[in-house]
């Protein structure tokens, strides 16, 4: 793994340019990564436009663009701006948060499978939501708040339980898996004590769905991303150093535990908010960073490419689920779940062929 990464980094050197200014400032620029980010953004936006045009009342892409720019007719304006745009925006933001959160977790745990849904954050948020659905028959807002509280509490518990003179990646992963197993059992119990209508609602929520999301969900997500994304990117340097191991990065001047705590809080907040908004959409957080890394062929956490990849993935998956099953039939989580399973299998086959596992 390690050697393989360094080989890849040597390969990618060719695409790295540095920008120098007369004042002595310089900026390292990975041309390939920039191109990937641009392409992924384009893909996400294209998928969004297509998704807005998809539904019981199809709208051609040109009309969608016209309406978004403010000169569509009244009917289209209502459908686009009030019904479909918020849903797509929630999809984009949730995907971006999950992609970034996943990249952070994978970098902190230093394991490509150490994503927040595997570590029990999704399960924790689900537990919070189920408590609201099953025990209190709560409204949508209460369910969202419950999920947020559940996700944050789980993240906090995992960090505390994994703490032992610092948090080591492996311990974090294993403690997360243990917590995840406990919470899964609690969720199963909550499902068995609910009546069948609540149970059906709970299962849809547990799969992850974008149905019926409106502007109310957009604003908190957007606000949080606006704060957290710059914060995370500002600390990305330290994270990159930490891939070399705690001791080396400490020697290079990174305050390892502080950066890790800060980034983990950010990752937990991103994941919990995204989960509260759309349910625990599986595998976006796991696959987005890995796919992004394969595209950029660059070592390191690849935070920005992962973010764009997450957004593109989720919106595309939502489009696929609406096209293949019809609107409102199967939630987007089913599609990402299937895609995630296929991706795991593909990973298995290719990694094995390449002799890496």
């Amino acid at each position, binding site marked *: 793994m390690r050697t393989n990464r360094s080989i890849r980094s040597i390969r990618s050197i060719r695409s790295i340019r540095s920008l120098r200014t007369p004042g002595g400032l310089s900026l390292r620029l990975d041309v390939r990564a920039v191109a990937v980010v641009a392409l992924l953004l384009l893909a996400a936006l294209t998928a969004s436009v297509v998704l807005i045009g998809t539904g019981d009342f199809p709208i051609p892409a040109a009309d969608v663009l016209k309406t978004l720019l403010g000169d569509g007719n009244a009917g289209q304006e209502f459908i686009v701006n009030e019904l479909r745009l918020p849903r797509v925006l929630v999809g984009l933001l949730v995907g971006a948060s999950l992609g970034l959160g996943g990249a952070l977790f994978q970098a902190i745990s230093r*394991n490509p*499978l*150490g994503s927040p*849904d*595997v570590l029990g954050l999704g399960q924790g948020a689900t537990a919070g939501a189920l408590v609201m659905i099953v025990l209190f028959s709560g409204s949508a807002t209460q369910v969202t708040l419950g999920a947020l509280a559940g996700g944050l509490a789980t993240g906090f518990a995992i960090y505390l*339980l*994994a703490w*032992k003179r610092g948090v*080591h990646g*492996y*311990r974090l*992963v*294993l*403690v997360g*898996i*243990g*917590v*995840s*197993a*406990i919470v*899964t*059992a*609690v969720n*199963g*119990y909550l*499902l*068995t*004590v609910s009546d*069948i209508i609540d*149970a*059906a609602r709970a*299962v*849809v929520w*547990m*799969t992850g769905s974008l149905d019926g999301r409106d502007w109310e969900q957009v604003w908190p997500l957007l606000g949080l991303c606006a704060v957290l994304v710059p914060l995370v990117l500002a600390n990305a340097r330290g994270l990159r150093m930490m891939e070399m191991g705690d001791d080396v990065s400490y020697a290079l001047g990174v305050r390892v535990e502080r950066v890790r705590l800060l980034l983990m809080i950010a990752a937990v907040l991103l994941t919990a908010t995204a989960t509260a908004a759309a349910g625990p959409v*599986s*595998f976006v957080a*796991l696959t987005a960073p890995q796919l992004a890394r394969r595209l950029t062929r660059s070592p390191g956490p690849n935070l920005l490419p992962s973010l764009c990849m997450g957004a593109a993935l989720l919106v595309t998956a939502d489009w696929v689920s609406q096209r293949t099953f019809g609107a409102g039939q*199967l*939630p987007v*989580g*089913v599609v990402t*779940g*299937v895609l*995630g*399973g296929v991706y*795991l*299998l593909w*990973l*298995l086959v290719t990694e*094995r062929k390449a002799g890496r*596992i």
Partner: protein
Amino acid sequence: MLVDSPPEQRAETAPAPPTRRAIRAFGLLVSVVILVLVALASIAIGAKALSMGQVWHGLFQDSGTYGDVVVADRLSRTVLGLLAGAALGLSGAVLQALTRNPLADPGLLGINAGASAAVVTAITFFGVTSLSGYVWFAFAGAAAVGALVWFLGGSRGATPVRLALAGTAISAALYGYLQAVMIMDDAALARMRFWTVGSLASASNAAILQVLPFLAVGTVLALTLARPLNAMEMGDDTAKALGANLNRTRALAMLSATVLCGAATAACGPIVFVGLMVPHVVRSFTGPDLRWILPYATILSPVLLLGADVIGRVVARPAELQVGIITAIIGGPVFIYLVRRRRTAQL
């Protein structure tokens, strides 16, 4: 796995001093007594409390009174608990030895989830309704996921972390599939939400008879593997030099673990952590010799499972908590304790 034992036991070689062997044999006897007591408790305790006299009457002088009916009902539940518990504990011990991974557990490695997904597929899409029909699906699912996790986790180079992650990731994919089935089909949801937590409540004599042959074969197979697995604990080269047939042992161990876990899951749904906890507890007083670990695990695992089942009946009277939930709530902290106790270098 050797890292678990205190130094004086690690140094020990095959012929244990007679006194120690006697103590272990005596301990085995004590374990059997404990098992019998827990089994009796499992018959006596429940929504309707029975006295020991009534239990005795029901067991040996069945005359169809209300108490006797209750005893008969709880008896099949207890027997299923005994069998499933033994199967899970034994498969956990075999998996831990086979993968040389102290955190191996059929639930954590996703083998339970594989069996569940296969059973749900059989029930929903193939219309299989009898246990004898879907037990084969459970085996196939368990075996497929077992192999998949082994490869994805890195086969020979597998570390506990990679195996556990591979198992969890595959479980997540399979549970996603289960959820999709439950969303599409309300009838499936009505049945499956009870099955997927793992419960002994639906035990019947017919079900027990159907899984019994599989469990018997798996148990005998696992117990005969103690010696070669012991040799393999010392590393592949040493084991080969000692005359163990590595590939045959691996294949048979995987087969027995799959059969045991698949049959137990088919009968009572996925139950986590029993296979993880018991071998650890056992190892703390038997040392690393599998010839003792395996029999002890076979006897003490049902103690845990039945004990958890009894607790589940007591804490939520008159309703009950499914046994799978209790084992997860007890087992999760044990797992986290095991993880925390280890130095990171050993993981």
